[in-house]
């Protein structure tokens, strides 16, 4: 297990390296520097030259990349081009907001999906089952920004029940409801589907019949025998779900003007603020790789068959 973990952690390095390389190359393939964005406020040539030298933009590309990597390893991502602050400082400001939003949404998604999926599997073709199928269809097909717009229209504009701008101090419950629910919805929908399917699969297995043949109560059969097996595939979905939360945060934070790194990312992209784009991209890649790694470790803990092979 320990060896396996170490090997997996080492495998992260090339992945992150390539992510950095790709982002770097793409960023530098883009035409136009960061300073020529605004035609009206053209910087004097002297100042632009100084800035270019300061950011190392006059070096050959491979050198720039190595220079960047060297600093990135020490967690120095430079300064934002648009705002005169360090990238770390800007990200550190937005990250707690995004993290809170993401974790809340993930918990909510699990809280909805697990019971709903299990109950739908146990009561196939019941009202609950059709309800969860409906939720799953809506949540996986209707784009989340469309759902967000509908929510904003109904609860914000029409009924005036919930505020829909900003995030507050992270304790403002009413302000957090809509963003959290909408961010959770696609994941909840997907997880419900997976939970239902894998629970159904588990319930149809021979070992469940064996358990019943021993005279165990139905509750014991479901919880001890079926559920533990059913949760194994569900656990693997948490990796993609993390990725979904990250991309979802771009949309949700933009729509609700939440000052997290998702919105920061979209703003920086429109402003071609490369130091922020690159640092954030690397951060995302890191988070996703970590999520996938933890899924594998959890998988090993849930399924005794994995340990021997690893």
């Amino acid at each position, binding site marked *: 297990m320990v060896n396996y973990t170490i090997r997996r952690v080492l495998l992260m390095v090339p992945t992150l390296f390539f992510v950095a390389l790709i982002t770097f190359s793409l960023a530098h393939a883009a035409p136009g520097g960061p300073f020529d964005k605004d035609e009206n406020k053209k910087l004097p040539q002297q100042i632009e030259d100084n800035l270019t030298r300061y950011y190392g933009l006059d070096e050959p590309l491979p050198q720039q990349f190595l220079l960047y990597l060297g600093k990135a390893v020490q967690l120095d991502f430079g300064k934002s081009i648009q705002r005169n602050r360090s990238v770390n400082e800007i990200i550190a400001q937005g990250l707690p907001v995004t993290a809170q939003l993401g974790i809340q949404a993930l918990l909510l998604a699990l809280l909805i999906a697990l019971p709903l999926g299990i109950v739908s599997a146990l009561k196939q073709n019941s009202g609950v089952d059709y309800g969860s199928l409906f939720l799953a269809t809506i949540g996986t097909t209707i784009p989340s920004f469309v759902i967000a717009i509908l929510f904003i229209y109904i609860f914000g504009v029409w009924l005036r029940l919930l505020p829909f701008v900003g995030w507050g101090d992270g304790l403002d419950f009413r302000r957090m409801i809509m963003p959290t629910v909408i961010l959770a919805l696609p994941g909840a929908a997907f997880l419900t589907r997976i939970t239902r399917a894998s629970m159904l699969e588990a319930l149809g297995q021979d070992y469940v019949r064996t358990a019943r043949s021993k005279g165990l109560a139905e509750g014991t059969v479901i919880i001890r025998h079926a559920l533990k097996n059913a949760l194994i595939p569900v656990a693997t979905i948490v990796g993609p779900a993390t990725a979904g939360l990250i*991309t979802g945060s771009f949309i949700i934070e933009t729509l609700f003007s939440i000052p997290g790194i998702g919105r920061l990312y979209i703003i920086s992209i429109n402003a071609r603020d490369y130091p922020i784009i690159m640092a954030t991209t690397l951060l995302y890649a890191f988070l996703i790789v970590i999520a996938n790694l933890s899924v594998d470790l959890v998988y090993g803990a849930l399924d005794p068959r994995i340990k021997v092979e690893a």
Partner: protein
Amino acid sequence: MATLAATASGRHHADAPELARKQRSLWGDAVYRLKRNRAVMAALAVVLVVAVLATLAPLIAPYDPIRQDTPNSLMEPFWGNPKFTLAQYPLGSDQLGRDILSRLIWSARISLLIGFVPVTLVFLVGATVGMAAGFYGRWVDNCLMRIVDIIYAFPDLLFLIIIMATLRGTFLGNLLGGLVLMFGAIAVVGWVGMARLVRGQVLSLREKEFVEAARATGATDGRIMFRHLFPNTLAPIIVSVAFGVPGAILAEATLSFLGIGIKPPTPTWGVMINEGFVVFSTTPWPVLLPAFCISLVMLAFTFLGDGLRDALDPRQRTK
């Protein structure tokens, strides 16, 4: 008493319907199941209507979708406008006075193009590479799997955002209002999944007896791949393509909504929502109408995909 040999008589009963139930080909069976599936038929109808509207957009749309009429901006749709006359904009106008109905119809064109062009690219590149990787293995396979590892570490949308964001300003990014770049970006992100799918299928089929048999009769590699392996991978490929279409439509809508997709003034539903959001709290229709269109098309394509998957892969059927 001598034993009697059985005669052929009396063997007919119950056999005929029995055989009919079992001996339908995979494709015949799939078509039969699709036709019985009412959700799929409804979805197909929606897709056909949208396709007709999109094709005939220049003839059907009452106005030029980018013609501005600022004095008549933000008009209500006919149901919210008591003084509505036929000369006006039936579904209202946006803040620049553009006709929403015409913009919706023209957007359908872009959406369908986005749905089908990249998927075709994905199919061509992905199936070829996947076939080669699965069949020849070795370095082709190694290279592919390394690329897969990296791309899979990245959510599709994030990858799309990076590509779009960095290449939007280039010559490529300006072709057809960013449409060409969008095709390319979706294809670049998508081919890996297809290649992986086909590779997996080929790997499991490669050792099957019918391939051995073909090899024994002296079939060339190319013949084995396209006459023997390819038809057997077709069902999962079709399902994957069917889900690729709404995936691409969603990607475009999301990117355009975030302001890094198709460039205005080219109308797409995502662009319309992006532009209309500024006035959303006072005038919701310019946003709600395209939102409805996206939802409808997404639902239709997803139902089609679900139906195809159920029809082609009976093992995956839930009930």
